[in-house]
């Protein structure tokens, strides 16, 4: 009656063993971590290992799985930031970039449209006043020619500009389809640049991901304060070169359209009036490295791509003797006078830098400018000591919880208690195996989830044992009682666990960060505890029964 075919036994023990093999690296956490780090470094360096890395590589056999459960920021310490990308910034840039084209176009038709003038407006729109309102139709027709089909958008046939008129003004804005497409591009660029910048610092396993329409989640383990990260990614780092028109100490100098007033970084109270259209920008940089100038002051060496190099070369050739401003995020780093034509597209930025600042500036320039500003909605920093305290506390609590439950089960069910306990230990091993396998992150609530599982995992087993106890009193013989016990407990076990699993699923779907970690361990715990209760305890009881063949037994 109690028969489990050999193939089923092999599958059950096989699954068990597989999960345990995947769980095993977690017992050798430091070793495996060093091994994995070394392996990654070697791979990046092109298969050449340093002596130190070779030592680390020997710590763990390559044929064994080497994935471990990552520790969450609350256990390892680190910074967690949620940033919002101000995607609207880009609309304004687009409008500013459009203005010269509109100006040139309408200037050629001066006879019909009269004089043109850019008006003050919202940043995301371009308003151009024409002095001959009769020419409005012609002007609109011309400007409409500037509109391009939206690229990469989901709305085929739409163009990127909405063009209309308001009295004697032409009003140009980005169309909705273009805004969506632009937002998407902005986000992708922003995520990539944030990733580049964080990678430059070289911390281990940073997690950078886009969240929702305009947010980026940044998690960097092992940093002491969010400031470091914010300084790195909170700077737009837009570098531009402008012709200087004037320099002044009056911050209220009148600024005409097409001009801009930027403060000096070097000298407090000095302002430069520059042409707002830039000659070249940081987008065209191919490299930037920290270095020193001829006076041995920290500086940054840079190199342009061919197009940028040509523009820069032409500009310097035409403006020998006049100053130009090197502007970083609306502040003038320095405004040197062009002494000679600078061909070849490389140059040096000097300013009032410390070595750290020049190094950071080089990093920022190399990784590119952020397309829009970031604001931080949420930031959490957990110190490594607090994380370690939590790990220690969690570890002790888990061990004590486990010992208490194991003891209690043994006292309550005797021999069957031992079987339940073996199942419980396998269960915990399997949770860790699955966590490693899916690359999950263990958080403090996650540890709580495991401890809760220790308590609840026995539930399915208890349901079965209690049922066998009942059936022993009525059923015909022990084998039948065992069989009926499993059969009748099945429905309750499944219903109870499916409902709990539903709540774990919802928790996972809505949860952020640590809560999600809890949902993962709770959900996996339900899966493994049902598996161990229905298959492993049964197999063990059947094996015991086959050997002993008891006429009666008590649970």
């Amino acid at each position, binding site marked *: 009656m109690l028969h489990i075919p050999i193939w089923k036994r092999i599958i059950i023990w096989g699954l068990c063993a597989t999960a345990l093999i995947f769980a095993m690296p977690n017992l050798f956490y430091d070793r495996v971590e060093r091994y994995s780090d070394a392996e990654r470094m070697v791979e990046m360096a092109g298969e050449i290992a340093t002596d130190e890395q070779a030592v680390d590589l020997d710590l763990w056999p390559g044929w064994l799985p080497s994935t471990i459960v990552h520790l969450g920021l609350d256990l390892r310490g680190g910074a967690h930031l949620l940033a919002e990308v101000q995607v609207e910034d880009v609309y304004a840039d687009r409008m500013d970039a459009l203005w010269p084209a509109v100006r040139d176009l309408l200037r050629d038709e001066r006879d019909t449209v009269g004089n043109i003038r850019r008006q003050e407006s919202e940043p995301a729109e371009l308003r151009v006043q024409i002095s001959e309102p009769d020419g409005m139709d012609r002007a609109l027709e011309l400007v409409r020619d500037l509109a391009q089909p939206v690229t990469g958008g989901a709305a085929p046939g739409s163009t990127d500009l909405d063009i209309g008129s308001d009295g004697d003004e032409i009003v140009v804005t980005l169309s909705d389809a273009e805004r969506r497409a632009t937002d998407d591009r902005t986000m992708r660029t922003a995520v990539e640049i944030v990733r580049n910048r964080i990678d430059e610092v070289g911390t281990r396993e940073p997690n950078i991901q886009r969240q929702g329409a305009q947010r980026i989640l940044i998690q960097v383990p092992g940093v002491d304060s969010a400031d470091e990260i914010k300084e790195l990614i909170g700077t737009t780092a837009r570098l531009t070169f402008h012709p200087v028109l004037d320099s002044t100490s009056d911050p209220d100098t009148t600024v005409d359209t097409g001009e801009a007033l930027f403060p000096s970084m070097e000298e407090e109270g000095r302002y430069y009036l520059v042409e707002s259209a830039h000659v070249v920008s940081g987008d065209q940089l191919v490299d930037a490295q920290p270095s020193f100038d001829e006076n041995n002051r920290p500086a940054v060496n840079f190199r342009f791509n061919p197009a940028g190099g040509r523009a820069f070369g032409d500009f310097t050739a035409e403006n020998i003797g006049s100053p130009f401003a090197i502007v970083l995020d609306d502040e003038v780093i320095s405004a040197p006078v062009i002494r000679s034509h600078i061909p070849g597209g490389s140059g040096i930025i000097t300013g009032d830098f410390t070595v750290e600042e020049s190094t950071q500036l080089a990093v920022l320039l190399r990784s590119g400018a952020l397309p829009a500003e970031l604001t931080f909605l949420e930031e959490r920093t957990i110190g490594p*000591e607090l994380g370690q305290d939590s790990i220690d506390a969690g570890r002790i609590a888990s061990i004590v919880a486990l010992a208490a439950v194991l003891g209690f089960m043994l006292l309550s069910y005797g021999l069957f208690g031992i079987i339940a306990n073996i199942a419980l230990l396998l269960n915990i091993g399997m949770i860790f195996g699955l966590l490693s396998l899916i690359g999950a992150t263990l958080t403090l609530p996650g540890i709580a989830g495991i*401890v809760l599982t220790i308590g609840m995992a026995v539930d399915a087993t208890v349901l079965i044992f209690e049922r066998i106890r009942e059936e022993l009193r009525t059923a015909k013989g022990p084998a039948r009682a065992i069989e009926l016990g499993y059969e009748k407990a099945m429905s309750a076990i499944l219903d109870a666990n499916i409902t709990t699993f539903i709540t774990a699923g919802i928790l996972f779907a809505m949860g952020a960060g640590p809560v999600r970690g809890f949902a993962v361990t709770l959900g996996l715990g339900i899966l493994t505890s049902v598996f161990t209760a229905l298959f492993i305890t049964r197999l063990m009881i059947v094996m015991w029964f086959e050997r002993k063949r008891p006429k009666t037994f008590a649970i």
Partner: protein
Amino acid sequence: MRLKLVPQDTTIDFFKHWKTTFGASMVAMVLSLVVVAIIGLNFGIDFRGGTSVRTQAEEPIDIAEYRAAVEGLGFGDVNITEVYDPGFADDENVAQINIQAQEGQESVGSDTIAELERTLQEIDPTLSFTSVESVGPTVSGELIQAAVLAVAAALGAVLFYIWLRFEWQFSLGAVAALVHDVTLTLGIFAILQIRFDLAIIAALLTIVGYSLNDTVVVFDRIRENLVKYKKRPLKEVFNISINETLSRTVMTSVTTLLALLSLFVLGGDVIRGFVFAMIWGVIVGTYSSVFVSSAVLLFLGVKRDWSKATDEAAGTRFAKPNKEA
């Protein structure tokens, strides 16, 4: 010698005083709601926005001194509490400082944090910040919404699943128990003013899961016994079912509580509120699966002719048809 918490055969009449127990539950629920409405929950920064700083210093903490120093900085509403844990060393003095969300700022800037740290270090140079968490009003608003949605979604999903597997009366009974558990948990959090943050929502949902687990096991037995004892009064069938599952109910609650108590005492102060919610939930949940969900079911009444339904609905039941019956 076996440890037996529950004797082999019990014949406790759980519904003898069902009006009293059910009434007590109702009163407790109403009281909880009143307490939540009057005193209010002690929302953490996850839901209220603001900044929460955990400090650690070697010298003992003088809260008044800290408060005086921090108030000088003009951050508005500041709340400082000392944190105790048996696991702390003698030179480990921990305090928690909560600062309200600042006008016109999302998360609190690093300048503000640096200023705060400087000010406090003047009191105690050994002081350091072991964690700084700052949540802007935008995010906290969204988190509240998500949390309410999650609890509602969990209740809805469960209502639906039980209705699918049992009958609508069962699903109302189960959800009544869940609402009871969640309300009472909110009540105790309001009374004890334990910080209510995102993790507590996770605990609430776990309580929902646990309580349900318990309820479903009892319901499953009720369903089985309704088929077995067709002619007995409903109340008797319920009593038999609860008595039969009593041993399991107690066993599971005890193992779960053992594990949770260990976590409560040894797991550190960071998750103590979270674990407390779960301990409370296990106790309340165990109680409610007998005295609330079953009572509601008894009140609503259930269909008695299960044999036919069982045949028809055989495909939707996991259990094989009972050969003995």
